């Protein structure tokens, strides 16, 4: 319709939790890009280009000598993006940094409905040393998982901080979320240039957050295992070895017989470790493990039975009323 719709400007959205390295990546793109980029960032202070590169700086917009501009989003993202689109000379590429707790896909959708734009890529940057913990974090796990829902490239960053085993574990965790996705391992010195592609909306999905999450959950299966009591150390090792390979990871606090302090069990693939539980870790039960597997993961009952075999026999005290209530509540709501 409009004149601009014949030359669509590619849009790339960069998401990922705080500290993953989004801004480092943006800095890298601004410094090394040969095209004229418009970069929209959340926090201006974090952008770090050489002073020699800055041609003009007016508080919310920074113009670089290579023609790129960098705009801080502040409170007015839509206004800022509108100004970028209205620029006299169309930009070669628009790069938008999503907030650390935002869902990059929500922003990417703009490029699917604005005729002058096309969606080039949605990239999630993940800190390899933290991502496995973040994905199961009680407070932000859901937020972080949602960021991967519809991205089409993951930069698994800071891989220089990990040994190969830990790195493989991080990779497996991300792959479990999105088995179809390309994962590139990066460090702050080996960041890639922008990919060149086109993303189209493929799935029709309803406009409610609830449906959206449901469809995300179906990509893998979760299993949670809660018991009061303790594991027998030796039998636990055997039980973990007996768990099926469809279980990709298992994590949570537990208690080992004859050990006064709670432990943290972490298992990725066949590797597992018991470490002292962090002091701030609180659990409603002695044992509260959460597992994630492929969609071929066997029933919870079968998995429960394997771990139940490792429990220390207890003098038969019936569960208290509060225990029962809590269990019921878990399933009702």
């Amino acid at each position, binding site marked *: *319709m409009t004149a601009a719709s014949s030359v669509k400007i590619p849009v790339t959205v960069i998401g990922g*939790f*705080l500290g993953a390295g989004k801004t480092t990546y943006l800095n890298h793109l601004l410094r090394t890009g040969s095209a004229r980029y418009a970069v929209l960032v959340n*926090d*201006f*202070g974090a952008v770090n280009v050489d002073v020699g590169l800055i041609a003009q700086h007016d508080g919310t917009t920074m113009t670089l000598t290579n023609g790129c501009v960098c705009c801080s989003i*502040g*409170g*007015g*993202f*839509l*206004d800022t*993006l*509108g100004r970028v*689109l209205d620029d006299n000379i169309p930009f070669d590429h628009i790069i938008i940094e999503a907030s*650390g*707790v935002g869902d990059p896909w*929500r*922003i990417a*959708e*703009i490029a*699917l*409905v*604005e*005729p002058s734009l096309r969606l080039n890529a949605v990239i999630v940057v993940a800190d390899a040393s933290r991502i496995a913990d973040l994905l199961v974090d009680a*407070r*932000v796990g*859901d*937020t972080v998982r949602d960021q991967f829902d519809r991205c089409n490239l993951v930069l698994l960053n800071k891989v220089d901080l990990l040994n190969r085993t830990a790195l493989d574990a991080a990779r497996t965790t991300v792959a479990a979320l999105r088995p179809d996705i390309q994962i590139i391992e990066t460090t702050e010195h080996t960041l890639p240039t922008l990919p060149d592609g086109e993303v189209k*909306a*493929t*799935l*029709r*999905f*309803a*406009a409610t*957050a*609830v449906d*959206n*999450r449901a469809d995300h959950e179906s990509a893998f299966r979760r299993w949670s295992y809660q018991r009061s009591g303790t594991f027998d150390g030796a039998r636990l090792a055997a039980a973990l070895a007996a768990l099926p390979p469809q279980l990709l990871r298992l994590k949570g606090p537990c208690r080992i017989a004859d050990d006064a302090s709670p432990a943290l069990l972490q298992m990725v693939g066949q590797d597992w470790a018991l470490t002292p539980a962090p002091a701030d870790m609180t659990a409603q039960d002695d044992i509260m493990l959460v597992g994630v597997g492929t969609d071929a993961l066997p029933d919870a009952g079968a998995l429960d039975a394997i771990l139940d075999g490792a429990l220390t026999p207890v003098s038969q005290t019936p569960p208290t009323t509060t225990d029962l209530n809590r269990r019921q*509540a*878990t399933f009702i*709501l």
Partner: protein
Amino acid sequence: MSQDTIVFSARKIVTMNPSRPSATHVAVREGRIVAVGSFDEIVGASGVRVDDRFKDKVLLPGFVEGHSHIMEGMMWSLPYVGAFDRRSPEGKLVKGLSDIDAIVARLQEAEAAMTDPEAPLFAWGFDPLHIGSVSLTRQDLDRVSTTRPIMVVHASFHISNVNTIVLQRAELDRTTNISGVVMGKDGEPSGEVQGIAARFRVFRVLGTNPLSGNLTADDVNRYAASSCIQGVTTITDLHNDLADLTIEVYRAASRRDDFSVRLVPAMASVSHSPEQGVEKIKALKASNNDKLHYGIVKLVVDGSIQGFTARLRWPGYHNGAPNGLWYIAPEELPSIVAAYHNAGIQLHIHTNGDEATEVALDAIEAAQIAKPLPDHRHTLQHCQMADAAQFKRMKSLGICVNLFSNHVYYWGDSHYDLTMGPERANRLDATGTALRTGVPFAIHSDAPVTPLSPLFTAWCAVNRISSSGRVLGKETEALTVEQALAAITINAAYTLKLDHIVGSIEAGKYADFAVLDEDPLEVTPEKLKDIAIWGTVVGGHVREAPRA
């Protein structure tokens, strides 16, 4: 007493000053209260002039609205199509609309009055929840016009409905595949749009966004007029980027003698890095005048309960909806809080769900341990789901709270049935718990989310009744009328650190009064919201509320 002193006499003066609860005369000079007392104490043989225009009225301290937004002033340039009656800044009672036909009729009326055929028609306040969950389709709006773009913003401010011409111009059709464009039964967009992408596209083809346009003097004047109508003499604008243009509009308005409200803007933390924010607040504070009070900063941690975007602790939403959204990451909040706290700046922190409240409490606790700030009065805003344990933490950390009592009326039924379930809905906006725990608290409207009217807010906190008539936790969480009046005057002033100059009628404070036809302490509590408000006195200037 000096010559330029005026004494107002009234049927009764409810001072909200516990050491002199009631009086009949108040002497005013240079905009401030000289003395409060009886005829003998104030006038006696002095021969001072007595202004008896309020001799049949009841004076209260001017109400303090501790959480509302300038958007209330902006919205009234547009037609209102909500479910409940509201009072316009002209003083007109704008009737609530109970069905789609009535909404279409009001829009037709507004459309007919427009002269420019190309100008878009915006309206606000559509509230499907309270009119039987009906939807407003593009076909409904096409009955208003097929040629003029129309956009109706929901009461939630997050969802809108547009007519077919808008969809066509925006090129949104059956092939559109994004989450915020809702499809109708016929497979075409229904006209309901939400989310950042759909909003961007629609505002781009409309060429204007009524919710983000530049602030004008008219907007501020409407806000002041609505304040006067409701007896409000101190009002917040509790989330503002404070762009240069806004600062200039506020400066000019507040310096006018006839500007009839004290304005307390809160800087939105999201618009600045904490370092810039600290500097900006320092500079702005230096420009304060008697009717403009910069100094506070607003943080928004989560979303809303009724929108299922608030962050809840276990067991989460009653209907099993997934947990809500963080607007600030829990691990980032402590450093933002510390930056302002260490600079001595008071924070107002929006937390609707109890998980967000917990994260805010943790952040303030860490800041207090690292660098104690006596009397910081950081205030949790809304804080609707806090339990007794969280109130006890507020108490020990010196935190204040501003509770959203109007929610009991407007969303109490949703909270009971869907979001929180009976137990938690009964202690929604727990004013009784705040009292028992000794946490300083105010109550608020969050206008324009719910109507600006402190007497109505007080009525909600006293009666705790939902719009369907369900009573929620009245035995345990309701306030007495006197307690509720304190929460809309002196205690609200306390949460803004302005209680030394406003919030009660006593010597030395600004002469700010709400002028009422009846004594709220004498009417039956069910009638509290129906007391007629004659107008206000601000800094000794008498202002009769507009009536239309």
